[in-house]
C-alpha cells in the first residue's frame, strides 16, 4: 500500500470515527431528553444505560477501530458528564468503590503497559523461532541503500539463531552524546555478536551501520507486536544514526 493510499484510508477512518462519535452522542442526549420528558426513564439513567451499551458495542466491534473508538469515546463523554453532574450526590461508599475500581485498573495498566522502556525490551523474547504467521512487521526501511533497493538476506534469521551467546549476560549500547541503554535479551545479544563478527569491531561512526540496519529491517523476522518491535527499532535507529559503541558482557 503506497503512502497516498494509506493517508486516504487513515483520513476515511478518522472521518467515520468522528461521525460515529457525534451521532452516538446526539442519539444518547436526544433519547435521554425524550425519555425524561415523557417520564419513561430518568434523564441520567438513560444516559448511563446508553453509555453502558456503547461500551459493550465498542468492545464487540474492537476489530473495526474507528467504530469501536467512536463508541468508546462517546461513552467516555456520557459517563463523565453524568459523573460531573451527579458525583457530589452519590454516597461516599459508592464514590470510594468507583474510584477504587478505576485505581485498580490504572495500576494494572501501569504495571502491564508502562514498565521502563529498556526493561520492556529486555523482557521480550525475540529469539523464539518464527512461526508461519510471523511476518516482518516493520514495513518501510528507515534508511535506504544507495540503489534505493532493500537488501534481503533470507538466511539471516537462521544464521542468528545458530550464534552461541555463551556466558554473555547483556549488551550495553552507548550512543554518542546520548544515554547508554542495556538489554539482556538473547536475540539482541546475538545481533550484537553478529555485528561484531561481521565488522571486527564494536565502535561505529554515525550512519556506518545503516546498510546492516536496513538488512535487519527487511529480513529479520520478529515475533513481537508492532509496538514492541518499534521500541527496539527506534533505539537501534538512534544508535545507528549517531554512532557509538556496544559491549557484550
Amino acid at each position, binding site marked *: 500500500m503506497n503512502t497516498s493510499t494509506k493517508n486516504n484510508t487513515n483520513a476515511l477512518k478518522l472521518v467515520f470515527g468522528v461521525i460515529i462519535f457525534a451521532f452516538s452522542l446526539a442519539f444518547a442526549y436526544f433519547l435521554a431528553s425524550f425519555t425524561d420528558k415523557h417520564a419513561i426513564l430518568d434523564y441520567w439513567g438513560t444516559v448511563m444505560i446508553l453509555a453502558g451499551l456503547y461500551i459493550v458495542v465498542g468492545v464487540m466491534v474492537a476489530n473495526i477501530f474507528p467504530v469501536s473508538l467512536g463508541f468508546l469515546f462517546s461513552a467516555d463523554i456520557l459517563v463523565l458528564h453524568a459523573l460531573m453532574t451527579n458525583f457530589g450526590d452519590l454516597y461516599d461508599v459508592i464514590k470510594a468503590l468507583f474510584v477504587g475500581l478505576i485505581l485498580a485498573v490504572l495500576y494494572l*495498566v*501501569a504495571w502491564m503497559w508502562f514498565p521502563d522502556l529498556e526493561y520492556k525490551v529486555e523482557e521480550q523474547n525475540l529469539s523464539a523461532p518464527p512461526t508461519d504467521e510471523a511476518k516482518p512487521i516493520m514495513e518501510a526501511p528507515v534508511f535506504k541503500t544507495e540503489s534505493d533497493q532493500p537488501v534481503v538476506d533470507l538466511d539471516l534469521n537462521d544464521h542468528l539463531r545458530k550464534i552461541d551467546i555463551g556466558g554473555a549476560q547483556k549488551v550495553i549500547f552507548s550512543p554518542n552524546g546520548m544515554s547508554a541503554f542495556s538489554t539482556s535479551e538473547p536475540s539482541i545479544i546475538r545481533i550484537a555478536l553478529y555485528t561484531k563478527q561481521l565488522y571486527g569491531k564494536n565502535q561505529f561512526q554515525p550512519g556506518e551501520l545503516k546498510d546492516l540496519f536496513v538488512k535487519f529491517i527487511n529480513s529479520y523476522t520478529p515475533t513481537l507486536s508492532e509496538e514492541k518491535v518499534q521500541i527496539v527499532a527506534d533505539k537501534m535507529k538512534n544508535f545507528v544514526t549517531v554512532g557509538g559503541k556496544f559491549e557484550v558482557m
Partner: protein
Amino acid sequence: MEIIAMIFLWPFIILAVGLVFIVLPDIFHGGMLSLLLWSLVLFVVGVFFTNRNKTASKNKEETKYQQLYLLRRTLVVFSIALLFPVFIRYTVDAFQGSLSVIVFGLIMSFGFLIWGLFVKRHSAIMVSNIAGGSIALFYLYMQIWSLGEGPRIIAAGLGLLLAVAMSIIKLREKLV
C-alpha cells in the same frame, strides 16, 4: 490481543483523567491545605515534565510513537497520583472518620509509598505511588490532628518508625 487492548487504553485513560478533574475539588479544598497540596501537585508535574524535556533534548530523534507512549504514561501517573488520595478520603468519609479506618488508610498509604520507593523497573508506579502516597499521608495526618494528642503522638511515632526503617534498608542497600 495487544492491539485490541491498545484501543481501549485511550478511552480508559481519558475517563480516568476526566474523573480526576471531577473529584479534584473533594481533595483540594480549604485555604492553606489547598495551597500546600496544589503546590505539591505542581511540583510533581513540574519535575516530571522537566525530566521529560531533558530526555527529549537528549534524544532529538524521539519518534511520535515514543511521544505518545510518554503522554499516555504521564496521564496514567497523574491519574494514579491524584486518585489514590481521593480514594483514601472517600473511604475515611464513608466511615465518618473512624479511627480504625484512618489507621487502615495510614497503613495503606505507607504501604503504597514503600512500594513506590522499592519498586524496580516500573518508574511510572514509583512516581505515582510516591506522589499519591505523600498526598494521602498529608491528608490523613491532617485528620489525625483533629483527633487529639494521643492519636497525634501515635501517628507521628508510626511515621518516624517507618521513615527510620526505610532509611536503614535503603542506605544498607546502597552501601553494599
